[in-house]
């Protein structure tokens, strides 16, 4: 199976669906008040989405060609049977979970992923606020184990397209909860609202793409608490709708931190690879520090989902 497989570009094919559902949600926002939109926020998100497609066309080949190199060392030849696609989808979803977890815990990858979280809104347009710089993080290397198992890079791109399309519809406040069996297995609007929250208990939770079972398995699942309305955005919210600034701000800030005078090598490396919010003088706060502060202030919440099990963190 050395030939280049040609699969449809699922994400591009879904563009009419994206537009139609955004229009539907805008209508629901107007007539039922179940969603909130802001003009410039929406424009920024949609331009980020279009820019992400352009970025994929321009530099996506870097990741793809790299994976093709590893494909020659594959161990198995699973072929193109239906079960292979299903298995590939599930394993790619597991890969997505770890990518996403790393993206929130390592500043180098966060610099690319952060723009998806920069809106203080949570609606279907937010889903399209996608990165332009993902390939430069090198995180596509997480696909290498799948390629070595024999899944062609084109198949990985194909199934990942379904994963991304699945994640579109969960960016909404319009749907509150789905039937319990569905909420138990799949990522849902409720689970993903938690992921976009900056409330202490919601930070660093629910990294799932399609299947929420990964968060349940690896201990990062936090259910939405009806008593704690989700506050969306990032810890230090941006005050710009400029897509260029949204796309590159964290790269620029990270570089500025890395080049600060008077730092040791370890401190410079920590500015690149430690969790977002790390600083050499503790003048900023990581999610762990925010959670620890929260339980010190509200000891009765110690051990609640998403919060430390002791006041000492």
């Amino acid at each position: 199976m050395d030939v280049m497989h040609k699969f449809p570009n699922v994400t591009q094919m879904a563009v009419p669906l994206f537009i139609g559902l955004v229009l539907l949600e805008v209508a629901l926002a107007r007539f039922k008040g179940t969603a909130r939109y802001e003009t410039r926020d929406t424009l920024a998100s949609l331009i980020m989405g279009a820019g992400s497609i352009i970025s994929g066309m321009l530099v996506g080949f870097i990741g793809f060609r790299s994976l093709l190199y590893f494909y020659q060392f594959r161990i198995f030849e699973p072929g193109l049977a239906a079960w292979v696609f299903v298995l590939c989808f599930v394993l790619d979803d597991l890969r997505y979970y770890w990518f996403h977890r790393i993206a929130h815990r390592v500043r180098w990858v966060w610099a690319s992923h952060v723009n998806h979280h920069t809106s203080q809104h949570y609606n279907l347009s937010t889903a399209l606020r996608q990165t332009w710089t993902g390939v430069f993080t090198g995180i596509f290397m997480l696909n290498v184990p799948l390629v070595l198992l024999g899944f062609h890079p084109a198949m990985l791109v194909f199934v990942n397209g379904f994963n991304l399309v699945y994640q579109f519809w969960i960016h909404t406040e319009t749907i509150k909860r789905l039937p319990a069996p569905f909420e138990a297995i799949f990522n849902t609007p409720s689970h993903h609202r938690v992921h976009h929250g900056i409330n202490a208990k919601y930070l660093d939770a629910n990294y799932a793409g399609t299947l929420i079972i990964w968060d349940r398995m690896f201990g990062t699942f936090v259910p939405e608490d009806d008593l704690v309305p989700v506050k969306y955005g990032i810890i230090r919210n941006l005050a710009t709708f400029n897509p260029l600034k949204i796309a590159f701000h964290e790269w620029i800030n990270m570089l500025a931190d890395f080049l600060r005078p008077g730092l040791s090598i370890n401190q410079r490396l920590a500015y690149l690879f430690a969790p977002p919010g790390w600083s050499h003088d503790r003048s900023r706060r990581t999610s762990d520090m925010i959670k620890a502060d929260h339980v010190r202030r509200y000891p009765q919440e110690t051990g609640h989902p998403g919060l430390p099990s002791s006041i000492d963190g």
Partner: protein
Amino acid sequence: MPLDILIILVVIGIGGVVLLTWALGWARPTRLVSTEEVKNQFRLDHPELEIGKVMLSTDGLAGLLELSDNAIGLIFSFGDKFVTRRLTPQIVKSIEVDDQAQGTQVLMRLADFTTPKIHMSFSDRDVKSLLNSLTNSEAGQ
């Protein structure tokens, strides 16, 4: 999907959605209506900070807060949401304070390229002394 069709879809889609939200009046900035709201909105981002005196700008688009750790809190309208900052001399690039008959005008620039310069107007003349801790430092000017 052919590239030309994709481009047309994206351009019409973005333009249509954005025009619709604008026509529905969702481009109007949100405003703070009281010093209590200034305090409550600021607390959402900084629950760990204790707040002293609070000032609301005359147009309701911004507010300043005296913080217990000797920093100054800033909150300003951003679309239909708010953005907050804890100001110290290190992150304030410049502050211009101009006392006029109708109130005190403040123009603030932060050392942060994602935050635009902020114009504020206060009827409370104490704003100048509140901002002193930022402007008296070398880094503040």
